[in-house]
């Protein structure tokens, strides 16, 4: 499976939130720290994207892209998280289930013929 690209999640005031390719998130509150981190993260995502060999097609690479249209991609209902104890910031983040995209694959089009095993 190809790992998701690292990306900057949000920037707000002097705070930058990032997510790396493994899904780990971090919040950088000082702009002096956040700016370089955001730049490195962005460049990392570019390097990751260009590292995919366009001439080589693997099983994962030929998989159909998940439909991204809002009409097809609907957020799955999630169970509300139980309130975390005061001061347990990390515990609270882990308790929130990650929303999973749900989509219906397009049905196979009508074909004129099928190629496969045949008699001989």
């Amino acid at each position, binding site marked *: 499976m190809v790992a998701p690209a690292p990306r900057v999640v949000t920037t707000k005031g002097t705070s930058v939130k990032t997510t790396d390719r493994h899904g780990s998130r971090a919040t950088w509150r000082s702009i002096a720290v956040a700016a370089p981190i955001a730049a490195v993260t962005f460049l990392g995502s570019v390097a990751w994207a260009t590292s995919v060999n366009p001439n080589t097609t693997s*099983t994962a690479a030929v998989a159909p892209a998940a439909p991204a249209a809002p009409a097809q991609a609907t957020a799955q209902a999630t169970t509300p998280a139980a309130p975390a104890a005061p001061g347990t910031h990390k515990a609270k983040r882990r308790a929130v289930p990650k929303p999973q995209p749900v989509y219906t694959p397009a049905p196979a089009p009508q074909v004129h013929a*099928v190629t496969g095993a*045949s008699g001989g």
Partner: protein
Amino acid sequence: MARGELVESFTSMASTITMRVVDPTDGAPQAIAEARRIVEDVAAACTRFDPTSPLMRANAAPDAWHIVPGVCADAIAAAHAAYLATDGRFDPRVLTQLQRDGYVTSRDFTDVPVVDKHPVPAPVIERTPWEPGFDGRRVRIGAEPIDLGGIGKGLAVRWAAEALRDAGAGILVDAGGDLVTRGVSPDDGPWLIGVENPWEATGDPLVVIDATDAAVATSSIRLRSWQQAGRVRHHLIDPRTGEPGGAGLVSVTVIGTDPSDAEVWTKALFLEGAAGIERAAIARRMSAVWVDAFGGIGMTPGAQARIVWQVSHADH
């Protein structure tokens, strides 16, 4: 808007042969009859399952000269050209190995592939070059008998399509694994061809390709793989070893322009196995799709450009 079409379907070469002519001309019925005659002539001349066929009479004394029907002589010549073009990967002399492994009658062995997921490499054997002789309809096969099954079907599709060339605005000649399309489809759009899922042939295809003005052929072990004395056998013999080849692969589909060439290259690429097929197909600029023993789908950029639909991993 759907167009009018003539459809002819019959059984030959142990397969259902279907011919479709879109917007047929007045001469289309005659052209279809001629195309059908060609297919049946090739089947009768080149079958290895009838000991009285011209091929098998020649195979009985392969080193002697024999007069055979024109389609049989042409098929042997085409097989030799394919042998040279593939550096011997395509070698019809594997007949002896097929018979040794129990494939002596025309039949289906199973409906799902029998897969050896951890094959042991077979040792390479010594083979003399194949040097048949040709003199019009007189042929000398060579030291060993040959099997024209696969290439015979590809040639029948090629020659039938040539007979239908002026029969309408579009044609399809489909012999199961091997097919060719020309011109428009009955839906006024592209000819859409599904690539069979080897594990669920009656379900959705694995991919659907735009095969307009193209030939498509598949070599698959879905119907012709079996166990013999505890060993997995199938009908795609590697002439370098004399054993079933294509380690780790279940099917290979090639999209090209000629059905006989596509048929030859499905076999030659299959023998590269899961480890080598991508490199070999790209090196020869082939449009190929393959399915490995673990259900993975691979394809070259040329094939990917023709994909109009692909099964999702959730369905596959």
